[in-house]
């Protein structure tokens, strides 16, 4: 035991050369490194309410509810596993994984996000189709592809089928 003692005391003196390695956190900020997946943040102007993120989320914490003419996209981030799948599938690049990791809170409801987007109803039968932003996105895509007739975007599927049966000229123009 005593041979061990002398060598350990020498080691202790060597360790003193390392100085102090302690970070000054939390008295000073210490940002996360690059590509760190922290709390998801949603750009409210870009979200179209499509629900792709809700389909891929592993703990199923993103819920879409349609009520009162609004679609509510709600994130209960208490059980988020920070996998980043919602960011990967979002067609509008609205969801990003921010570098925020200081998310401790006494009430876990404090990190929830709730987005309400207006719903689009069919002009013939009044059924809910999708959000208005999704319809706008489809219109923009059609315009960019060269189609000028985008007035039937606000018809639900059954009404669009009925329209197609009753106006063969419209079908001929599109399929030419």
């Amino acid at each position, binding site marked *: 035991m005593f041979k061990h003692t002398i060598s350990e005391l020498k080691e202790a003196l060597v360790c003193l050369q390392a100085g102090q390695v302690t970070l000054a956190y939390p008295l000073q900020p210490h940002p996360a490194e690059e590509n760190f997946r922290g709390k998801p943040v949603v750009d409210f102007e870009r979200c179209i309410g499509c629900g792709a993120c809700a389909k891929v989320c592993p703990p199923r914490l993103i819920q879409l509810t349609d009520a009162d003419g609004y679609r509510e996209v709600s994130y209960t981030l208490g059980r988020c596993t920070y996998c980043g799948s919602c960011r990967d599938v979002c067609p509008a690049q609205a969801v990003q994984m921010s570098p925020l990791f200081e998310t401790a809170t*006494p009430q876990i409801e404090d990190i929830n996000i709730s987005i309400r987007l207006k719903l689009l109803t069919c002009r013939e039968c009044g059924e809910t189709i999708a959000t208005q932003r999704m319809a706008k996105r489809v219109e923009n895509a059609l315009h960019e592809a060269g189609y000028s007739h985008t007035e039937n975007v606000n018809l639900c599927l059954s009404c669009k089928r009925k329209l197609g049966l009753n106006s063969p000229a419209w079908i001929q123009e599109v399929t030419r």
Partner: protein
Amino acid sequence: MNSRLFNWCFKKSIWVYHANAGACNGCDIEILDVLTPYYDVERFGIRIVHTPRHADALLVTGPVTRQVRERLLRLYEATPEPKLVIAVGSCATGGGIWYDSYATCGGVKNVLPVDIHIPGCPPKPEAIVYGVAQALGMVPKQVQAQTYIEE
């Protein structure tokens, strides 16, 4: 004066007991990381103790599985007053991926009264230090619920 003195003593000296309630050990490894010289929580008076009788705070990880639920309640009762319960990790705060499983209770908040939640999968050691510092009143809370209504 007495209670102000004791409040000061509680803010400066917290002894934590780490209770694993069915966790995958990711959060437990991050808690071990917090006890290294890099983050040095002893300067805030925080110390790991190995029995709940000596503890002031319980650091609970894991969604509370059915088998561990009764033992976790006994650990909570064995800790003398006043005490804190700190839920570390996404499994403890909301049940994680097992939020609706038959085998878990869906998070510590369904079993014990939680004082502070620290989400993360696993939370960075800085996030755990931030959470405990918030429980001691050293740093303010940074998150709040966000709502957006399109008009």
